């Protein structure tokens, strides 16, 4: 099969209220398109012949097509847009993930923040958890996608998609937190977080973004990096848990700051370093559900309030290991160097 990759680029990540309340950054659409072009050029240079892209009505497709109309760009693979009608909601990401999985792409490159990556993973774990993703960071609180020059991500994905590096060398397994809300009638809702599932006292999802420590109740983390920005930093600064380490971390906040075990100073959003009252914390063991204590509130998934729950509903958090895979760009490039994959012999 022609080496093919998928691309899901979210035009609306990094547009939420944290630009007002926290001086968070804004990656402009033109720069997002430049990132896409750099990644695609690098992937093509390493063997990718075809790229299937999610269409959008937020400007990325329009600017890409304007670039392509300017003339044939031999440095790019053949670019096709998926046959779907954009709705400009997260449903586009879900639909595109399904279409890319059915099209048999070797990997899906995701351009967005934690929220966009979560949306792709949520769909993949249902359909094809073995299909790897590769992240390009453009969101606000990016704990999941690492900051890396897109050219390098494109090369790594290209080498894997072209079959020049095998899965054992190229892919990394990841954990996630599975959220389940069960009503008194036994009906359940399920969702996932790839970094943090956060229980808040807020009773409606409102503008979705989360930035007030006073509303936080508990934090459930798939991994906890002390260098992270966002709510996972709370765990990262208490008891770091690596991305590939066993288990996760659950942190219960103190409802009354005066009775907290300690106050942790944590970067909960860009520019917002705040004291967080901590009650206690514990490791999460894989496949062992923890029950949320709060009676009613919302669950924020990877930074956005998503699920409201009421009294009488039971919310559980379960850590799952080996839930999905990423293309490990650092490892791919190291393998490329060790095996001389990018050396071209000079004809004698």
């Amino acid at each position, binding site marked *: 099969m022609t080496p093919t990759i998928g691309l899901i680029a979210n*035009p609306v990540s990094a*547009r939420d*209220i944290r*630009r*007002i*309340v926290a001086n968070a950054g804004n990656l402009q659409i033109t720069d997002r398109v430049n990132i896409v072009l750099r990644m695609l050029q690098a992937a093509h240079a390493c063997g990718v012949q075809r790229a299937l892209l999610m269409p959008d009505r937020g400007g990325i497709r329009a600017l890409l097509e304007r670039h392509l109309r300017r003339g044939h760009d031999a440095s790019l693979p053949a670019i096709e847009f998926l046959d779907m009608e954009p709705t400009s909601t997260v449903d586009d990401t879900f639909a595109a993930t399904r279409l890319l999985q059915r099209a048999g792409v070797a990997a899906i490159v995701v351009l967005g923040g934690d929220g966009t990556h979560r949306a792709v993973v949520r769909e993949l774990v249902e359909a094809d958890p073995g299909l790897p993703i590769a992240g390009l960071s453009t969101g606000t609180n990016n704990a999941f996608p690492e900051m890396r020059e897109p050219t390098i991500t494109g090369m790594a994905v290209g080498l894997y998609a072209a079959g020049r590096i095998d899965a054992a060398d190229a892919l990394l397994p990841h954990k996630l937190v599975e959220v389940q809300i069960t009503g008194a009638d036994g009906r359940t809702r399920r969702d996932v977080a790839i970094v943090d599932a956060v229980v808040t006292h807020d009773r409606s999802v409102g503008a*979705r973004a989360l930035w007030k420590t006073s509303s936080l109740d508990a934090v459930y983390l798939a991994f906890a990096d002390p260098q992270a920005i966002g709510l996972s930093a709370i765990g990262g600064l208490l008891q770091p848990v690596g991305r590939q380490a066993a288990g996760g971390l659950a942190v219960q906040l103190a409802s009354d700051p005066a009775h907290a075990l300690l106050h942790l100073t944590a970067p909960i959003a860009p520019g917002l370093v705040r004291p967080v009252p901590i009650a206690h914390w514990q490791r999460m063991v894989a496949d062992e559900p923890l029950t949320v204590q709060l009676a009613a509130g919302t669950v924020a998934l990877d930074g956005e309030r998503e699920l409201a729950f009421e009294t009488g509903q039971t919310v559980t958090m379960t850590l799952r290991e080996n839930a999905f895979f990423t293309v490990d760009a650092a490892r791919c490039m190291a393998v490329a160097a060790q095996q001389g994959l990018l050396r071209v012999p000079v004809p004698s």
Partner: protein
Amino acid sequence: MAGNPFPQSKEQLLQAYRTMRTIRDFEERLHVDFGRGDIPGFVHLYAGEEAAGTGIMMHLGDGDRIASTHRGHGHCIAKGVDVVAMMKEIYGRKGGACEGKGGSMHIADLSKGMMGANGILGAGAPLACGAALAAKFRGKGEIAISFVGDGASNQGTFLESLNLAAVWNLPAIFVVENNGYAESTSRDYGVAVDSYVDRAAGFGLPGVTVDGTDFFAVHEAAGEIIQRARKGGGPALLECKMVRFFGHFEGDAQTYRGSGELDDIRSHQDCLKKFSAAVTSAGVIDAASLKAIDKEVLAVIENAVKQAKAAPQPTAADLTTDVYVSY
């Protein structure tokens, strides 16, 4: 009942519903009356966009000023302009908000901080800068908001105003009501970079995008932006992604829309349906209370039309009043 899960009080939620329902019924009624030929001039209806105007205006007082657009009825109602005076104005009758001499695109009521709808696209933004400068001098924490459509955001006046507001650090807020079409031109075609937040960034202003059909999202984001401006934090842009249920103007055949598009947005993106579902499923307001409001609002609109039709036309002598020159 599990208590009120929303950050707004029950009274505020009822007020929000009443305002949105009033706008919807006002516009639905104009759609019918204009089609019958009862109304002079042109009307541009706000139906479908109610959550944005309502969610923003609930944070404002009469001392806060807004500059509206050609699609201004919803802004007027949400800002507290009397619906009878509005209806009379649209019918071109004496006793209208502007004595029947302005019509739909020129409704103003300075006592409510409503500086006027505006027939000139993009003309409201400089006016809002002026009002914001005055507010800054007054020092009472008042602000000014300019509403602008996605099409008018391409006007020089709008972009110049972003610059001026940034340079003078004005308590000015620019709300882009992005309903996807500049008259009949899709934003995909007519906007070079389809992000209004990016435009704000070009002038050093923060910008936020929200689902303009979600009252709760608009209300929360607008609250933060307005509070920031009141405290001297300066200008910002709020993009509300929304839908309009009618054409650009009444009589617009809307051949530019996709097949089934209108049915789809009325089914899935109706801000009133979304609001009603949220408050009733949370058990804060029951369906009967909403129905009672529906009934009251219908009577209010019916009365407004009745009074408008019964009101006299302006006379020739009225032409020389309310103007800057003495005759």
